[in-house]
């Protein structure tokens, strides 16, 4: 027998009986941030490749939702803070060891750029839009002239944004489930995949849909590989990481993870997209919505399961 009890009766809110400091706000933000990163990545990628005409949704239409996603995500982050009036302290320092610090700065850079990109394409929804002020019209002209440097900036920032959502978790050695460097690439791939799914959902051109179905198939395969790789790493690691993996291999998160994330979020849309590419008609909304659903479930499950994984002593 080895029984360990806190006999002085500790019950600190959010800490006891087990850590529950982060609720729906953080995983929701991670999903929105990843999705925004994915859409921005494809928008800038196809601008750099000079294929705006073949991918009108990816380059012009889909990025219109990005500012909304980022603002909602930032608002969720703000709601999570417990000392709200002091949030500006984030922007008084840059701490490279703290992913949250440089993540906040990346958001500070990427959010205005996403607004600029959306503004450049505002005529997609409001064809008769007029900027009215001459300086705004001039600003638009300057941006259009420098669309390539702008795209390069956005593509780099979007990759950092996508990776950071995973690195944020992997920096916590105290939570063995999060403490794996696979989480950065996994969240980035998932973000790109949800971005591709969002483009699939909006796109009306069949050539573009085919392209993004192909991209999504590749991304889902990479994601499945990373998940298998993550569990191999856990099971070959120390006892605390074996215990963390057990949360998904018989523990309380087994059913939600394998059913919602792996089966419904990855395997089913993978099969449907392959069928679609094989010319068997599948409504494009079904795999796209499943991928988005899988992306949101992945963040929620990793965020909550991670908080229940710990070092035992």
């Amino acid at each position, binding site marked *: *027998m*080895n*029984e*360990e*009890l*806190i*006999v*002085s*009766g*500790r*019950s*600190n*809110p*959010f*800490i*006891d009986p087990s*850590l529950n*400091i*982060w609720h729906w706000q953080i995983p929701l933000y991670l999903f929105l941030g990843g999705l925004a990163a994915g859409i921005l990545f494809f928008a800038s990628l196809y601008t750099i490749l000079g294929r705006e005409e073949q991918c009108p949704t990816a380059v012009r239409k889909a990025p219109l939702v990005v500012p909304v996603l980022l603002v909602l995500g930032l608002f969720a982050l703000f709601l*999570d*803070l*417990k*000392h*709200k009036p*002091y*949030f500006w*302290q*984030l922007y*008084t*320092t840059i*701490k490279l*060891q*703290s*992913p*949250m*610090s440089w993540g*906040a700065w990346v958001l500070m850079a990427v959010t205005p750029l996403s607004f600029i990109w959306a503004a450049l394409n505002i005529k997609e929804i409001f064809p008769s839009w007029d900027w009215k002020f001459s300086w705004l019209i001039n600003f638009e002209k300057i941006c259009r002239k420098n669309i390539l440097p702008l795209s390069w900036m956005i593509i780099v920032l979007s990759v950092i944004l996508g990776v950071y959502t995973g690195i944020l978790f992997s*920096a*916590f*050695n*105290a*939570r063995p489930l999060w403490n794996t460097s696979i989480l950065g690439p996994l969240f980035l791939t998932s973000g790109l995949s949800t971005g591709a799914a969002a483009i699939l959902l909006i796109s009306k051109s069949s050539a573009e849909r085919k392209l993004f179905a192909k991209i999504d198939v590749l991304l889902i395969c990479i994601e499945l590989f990373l998940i298998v790789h993550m569990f191999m790493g856990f099971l070959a690691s*120390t006892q605390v990481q074996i215990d963390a993996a057990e949360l998904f291999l018989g523990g309380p998160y087994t059913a939600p993870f394998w059913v919602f994330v792996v089966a419904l979020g990855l395997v089913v849309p993978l099969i449907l997209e392959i069928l679609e590419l094989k010319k068997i008609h599948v409504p494009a909304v079904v795999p796209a919505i499943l991928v988005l659903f899988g992306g949101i479930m992945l963040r929620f499950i990793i965020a909550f399961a991670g*908080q229940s994984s*710990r*070092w035992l*002593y």
Partner: protein
Amino acid sequence: MRYAMAVDTKKCVGCSDCVVACQTENNVPIGYCREWVVEVMSGTYPQLEIEIRSERCNHCENSPCVRCCPTGASHYSNGGIVLVKPDKCIGCGACIASCPYDARYPHPGGYVDKCTFCIHRILDGMQPACVAVCPTKCMYFGDLDDPASDVSVILKKRKYKTLIPEAGTKPHLYFLI
């Protein structure tokens, strides 16, 4: 200067006087605690063994909480004591998630709070409240760099352990075994 504390698990009776002293001295809000007492029962009856530990922030030398704090609110103060500046803290909870000892909590005021080794008392030449009040005198506090300090002397004489050394935090809370 490196402040550290040692707790004698053979002398501690688990009375929780240290916990109450801490709450009173530091005006800890009701329902919260900066320190706590752990009782570990091991073995099979009748060969049972009990270990009692008075635990708190380990004031780690390689603190994950200081590393992950995005604003620098969590910092190393005099003698390596890990403190939080309430007016720099945004209450994001990163340090709370990063602590393998679960030693931090969000204060009802919004900022994160934790054991300070009673730095206000140390600066006045006194012992931390928990050490001063202990009825079995099972706690030792002092500067590890001073070979004559209470904690250095006892760590030379006795066998000791730290909690979760494999987490790489280099804790400064020692348990005499």
